[in-house]
């Protein structure tokens, strides 16, 4: 009987369930919308050496490697001998946490019978961290907010009150920020409680044996998948690049990728230098998105842990935009970071054809508005202020055998907020939020559609619009003959074109008209199944003009569909 193996399988499942519980507890108690509505958080369990054993699946590939690496930094900075039962540590160091000051990582050591057996760590995005506020406009990390080095928040059960006091004094929403930090403490505590129950049920005094089992199996499984990829690759090495909007000047990302027998190497030498504005990316975040992209394509079913991530070696030269060092500004590192997978896939497509999607909108189409009464507002009683952040997605790239997903986040996994909830958060009105026809790139498989939004304020209010978009000048490019996706468009309702990034004023009575980008197509459009073209036209994913001019339907075919639609015969 191989009893041990069965019991260990059960324990591994249980550890994954423990971190899922940890993440749930965080969502239930969090304040920041990005955590509770959109899933911008992470949670994981580590062994005593700081190796990540399991991580909850949440909306944030960006935290994958960063989380895996962070506990090691805590061990190094605090020292094992200085760790005690009842301690809790924290940081928002962009380079030792998850890439910008708005992410707070909290680590709690787990002691069982007086012995340190592991750690729980969790991260969430807080509503404010002081400085200039959330945006790309800072020139260095010093302007982006309060920096919290790795330190003890709770020392043997004793909360560091002077620190909490200092924090409260430095952020715009002190109650919520402190509430969110204690939500992190609570969720680690729930993880610890479940872990202790599990250890007592299975008679464990430490995690070493189960850790070895998990790491060994994950490593084997990852290596097997890499070996398969190595066998299937059509050449040894590929280099690809992609140019994107940047802040004031375009940025080029370059990836050099090779698949070896037992590892995958990805280097970003040749990418643009640091940008002056806060769109630079610390290496941990680069590694996370590059590794996420590679894992999806090569080893998607292996859970994230120290061993399953190790074979993916991601490097970038110091102080290029993808390895920004202190004190570069990094607040909006996601705008560039979320475009890394497209760059990596451009290279991977040369090594493993028919595996990866075409380029997509990729960067989330997020914006923040700061609303206030305009001077001409007559009825002052209805005046109000508001800070509203929304998450939105354009179209994803078409796949080798499927159309791209419309208005769906990739590589990020976060959710949008309901319009009705957003309109309760301040005097904002979303006049439109729907699919953008003709925005998906042409192809045998069509790119996913982007979306239209129209944003205004309640009568008598004006606002600042903080744009965080890309793909205005550089739309998603098609693969294997597929067409490009439509570009981002942003203008005021009076027709004045707005910038894709940065804070911009919108006067009372005007709206911001947004067209978010589509994903690119895959393969030649001539090869697209006519039935799919007919359906696309019937559903209005493509216009009559596009159906005829670009997809090659005859006028007769199109009119037949129109007749059938009137009679309700399609669907």
């Amino acid at each position: 009987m191989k009893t041990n193996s069965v019991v260990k399988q059960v324990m591994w499942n249980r550890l994954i369930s423990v971190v899922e519980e940890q993440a749930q507890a965080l969502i239930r108690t969090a304040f920041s919308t990005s955590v509770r509505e959109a899933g911008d958080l992470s949670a994981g369990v580590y062994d005593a050496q700081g190796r990540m054993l399991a991580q909850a699946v949440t909306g944030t590939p960006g935290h994958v490697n960063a989380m895996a690496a962070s506990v090691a930094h805590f061990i190094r900075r605090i020292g094992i001998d200085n760790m005690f039962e009842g301690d809790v540590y924290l940081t928002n160091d962009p380079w030792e946490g998850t890439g910008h000051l708005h992410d707070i990582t909290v680590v709690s050591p787990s002691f069982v019978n007086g012995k340190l057996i592991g750690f729980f760590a969790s991260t969430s995005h807080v509503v404010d961290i002081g400085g200039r506020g959330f945006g790309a406009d800072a020139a260095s990390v010093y302007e982006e907010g309060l920096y919290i080095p790795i330190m003890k928040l709770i020392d043997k059960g004793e909360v560091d009150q002077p620190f909490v006091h200092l924090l409260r004094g430095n952020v715009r929403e002190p109650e919520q920020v402190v509430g969110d930090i204690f939500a992190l403490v609570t969720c680690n505590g729930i993880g610890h409680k479940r872990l202790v129950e599990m250890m007592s049920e299975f008679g464990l005094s430490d995690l070493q044996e189960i850790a070895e089992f998990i790491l060994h199996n994950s490593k084997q499984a990852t290596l097997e998948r890499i070996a398969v990829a190595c066998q299937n690759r059509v050449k040894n090495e590929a280099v690809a690049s992609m140019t994107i909007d940047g802040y004031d000047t375009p940025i080029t990302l370059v990836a050099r990728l090779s698949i070896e027998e037992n590892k995958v190497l990805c280097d970003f030498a040749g990418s643009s230098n640091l940008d002056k504005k806060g769109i630079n990316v610390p290496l941990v975040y680069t590694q996370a998105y590059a590794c996420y992209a590679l894992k999806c394509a090569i080893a998607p079913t292996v859970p994230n842990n120290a061993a399953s991530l190790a074979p993916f070696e991601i490097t970038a030269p110091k102080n290029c935009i993808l390895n920004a060092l202190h004190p570069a500004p990094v607040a909006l590192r996601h705008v560039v970071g979320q475009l890394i997978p497209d760059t990596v896939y451009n290279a991977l497509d040369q090594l493993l054809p028919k595996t990866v999607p075409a380029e997509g909108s990729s960067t989330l189409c997020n914006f923040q508005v700061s609303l206030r009464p305009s001077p001409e507002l007559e009825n002052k009683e209805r005046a109000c202020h508001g800070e509203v952040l929304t998450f939105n997605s354009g179209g994803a790239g078409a796949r080798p055998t499927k159309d791209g997903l419309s208005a769906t986040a990739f590589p990020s996994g976060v959710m949008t907020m309901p319009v009705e909830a957003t309109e309760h958060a301040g005097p904002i009105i979303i006049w439109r939020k729907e699919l953008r026809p003709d925005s998906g790139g042409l192809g045998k498989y069509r790119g996913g559609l982007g979306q239209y939004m129209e944003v205004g304020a309640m009568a008598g209010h004006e606002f600042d619009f903080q744009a965080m978009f890309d793909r205005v000048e550089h739309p998603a490019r098609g693969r294997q003959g597929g067409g490009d996706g439509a570009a981002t468009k942003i203008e005021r309702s009076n027709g004045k074109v707005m910038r894709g990034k940065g804070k911009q004023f919108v006067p009372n009575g005007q709206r911001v008209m947004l067209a978010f980008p589509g994903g690119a197509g895959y393969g030649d459009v001539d090869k697209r199944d006519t039935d799919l073209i007919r359906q696309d036209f019937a559903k209005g994913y493509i216009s009559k003009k596009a159906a005829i001019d670009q997809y090659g339907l005859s006028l007769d075919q199109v009119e037949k569909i129109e007749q059938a639609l009137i009679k309700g015969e399609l669907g």
Partner: protein
Amino acid sequence: MDDKQRIRLGVDIGGTFTDVVLEVPDQQSTRQYSSKVLTTYAAPENAIIDGMQQVCCKAGIIPSQIDQIIHGTTLATNALIERKGAKTALITTQGFRDVIEMRTESRFEQYDLNLTLPEPLLPRQRRYTVEERMGASGDVLIPLQRADVETVVKAIIEAGYESVAVGLLHSYLNDSHERLVREVLAEQAPEVMVSLSSEVSPQMREYERFNTVVANAYIKPLMKSYLSRLERRLRDEKVGCAVFLMHSGGGIISIESAAEFPVRLVESGPAGGAVFAANIAARYGLDKVLSFDMGGTTAKICLINKQTPKTSRVFEVARTYRFKKGSGMPISIPVIDMVEIGAGGGSLAHVDSMRQIRVGPESAGSEPGPACYNRGGEKPAVTDADLVLGKLDPNGFAGGSINLNIENANTALTVELGHKLNMDALTAAYGLVEVVDENMANAARVHAVENGEDLTEFTMIAFGGAAPLHAGRLCEKLGINRLLIPSGAGVGSAIGFLRASFSFEANRSVFMRLSEFDSCQVKLLFENLASEATEFVRDCDQNSTVLAEYKVYMRYSGQGWEIPVSLTEAQANEPHQETFKRLFETQYTALFGRPVDGMDIEITVWAVNATTPPDQVAKIGECTKGQLANVSAVRDLFEPALAEIKKAKVVNRHDMSNGDYVQGPAAITEEETTIIVPSSRLAIKQPDGCIYIVRQ
């Protein structure tokens, strides 16, 4: 006449079987008869009539003597899963045509590059828009022009729709535009059925509300026609009594309400199961119960506090991707809150790329069934593993109607799992059941933590065909000390229907911060909700007392998740800001350890549940152990907790008298199933027929 003197029939149409339970009052007690008939999909009423005749025959009565029929059905759920609804259109606010298609704009599976999202119930060409707009405080920003509605209605008539859903932004605050659309439709297309989002699901969050009203419209013609056919067939059988429907929230509504709001029938069968468990909990005076219902394809787990199943305002139906959260469609109606996972007797096992055994959600179903059924199934199912481990008697399954073939089970386990993992069939079976039990335990744990509960204080009540085989082990895994397995476990949902009260929950999304608490508005709001809910219940029962339960959903301003806070009638009628604050903080602390100082608190949803008083349950004292039960045989049984084979005592459930006990390892057999008692547990027969299994 109260329920005690009525002859009542409970009918549950399930995926495979239609269960019928008849209760006939006697001088002292109530006699209960049950039958199981195969569900007749083409005309589901046929199975009901068959089953009804069978139980009437057993009871020696004629159908016309039946005083009341309570009915629950999976037909609504199936129509949504199989997309077999009516030709339906949606009329929505201009600019928001794609809400039900864009969903949450996220992927429910992060690592699958070839992920497919579920298609919306209505394709884009069936979604029409009108120019209009309500603001977030219910004020009209753009008035709806009647002429615009007429244009759309004309198109709808020309396209020949049977049913129309109306979902406009912020209509939960102001329904006047939705009503105008209905008015025009009624005038110009009276034959078209109409559903308004402000009536079906008056709650904030447009994706959930629109999807719910679309689902309602989509299944309305089908359910309306089924219910009227059923009434006709019953009349033909001379059954003149009223028919009521079980709804998703665990209460009963009139057949007219059901036809108007058929989406409320979704998952009514499992809701009946939860009511069944709640009734047993009341009998034993148990305040904390976990109900565990395991059938052929899925297992359902529900928390029952103080004899009331936990309820929720939104759930997901028709999950398309391994029961994964987010892969189905949200329905926001009052519902008994359950987790459902793809783990049943027929769930199939395989080995994944990590060399781990995975079980479900694919199921062998009834054809071909598990390998041991000997009907051509080649993959190992949970039942195969149960057989190989000695939990099932090959000759005594389903009352001896199916002979289980252990050789087939061994082969399937060896080929699919053993060869790949270098294990023998027994070890593979052990691995398989441990994985499926662990999956269920994990689902229960996560559900408990989402609700801030600690399962170790709970009693489990287990029913459904496969539950008694797995419940003991599940209790070991969850640290639950007490387990009850009721008699009649195979038709638990249908019995549950007969225990349910008439009830209806009315609710509204109205945002109010405690710092801006308006007691007049609150009073009025509760009054309106109470009269709306009470009216529904009055339709069902003219004479009974109607109780009102008041509940609000609250959170700290800035949080996204509300917690339910119950109010007494007095607290609702004389609302005070301080009372609300105190109740919220108490509840929050119970769930998450500590309140958050200095934050404003807000109320988001207001609900009043009107209900007839629950059945008076005769409490029974828990019976302590008396005589050693009569052991009919001894057989080998594999014990996962000990990882070894033990000699298990075999006891026939019907031979057990009150107080008879058996110490595990033991197998208590009966016609429908087998109860496995692990070595760590002791089983005692109770006066009401339950088997009480307690940790030693």
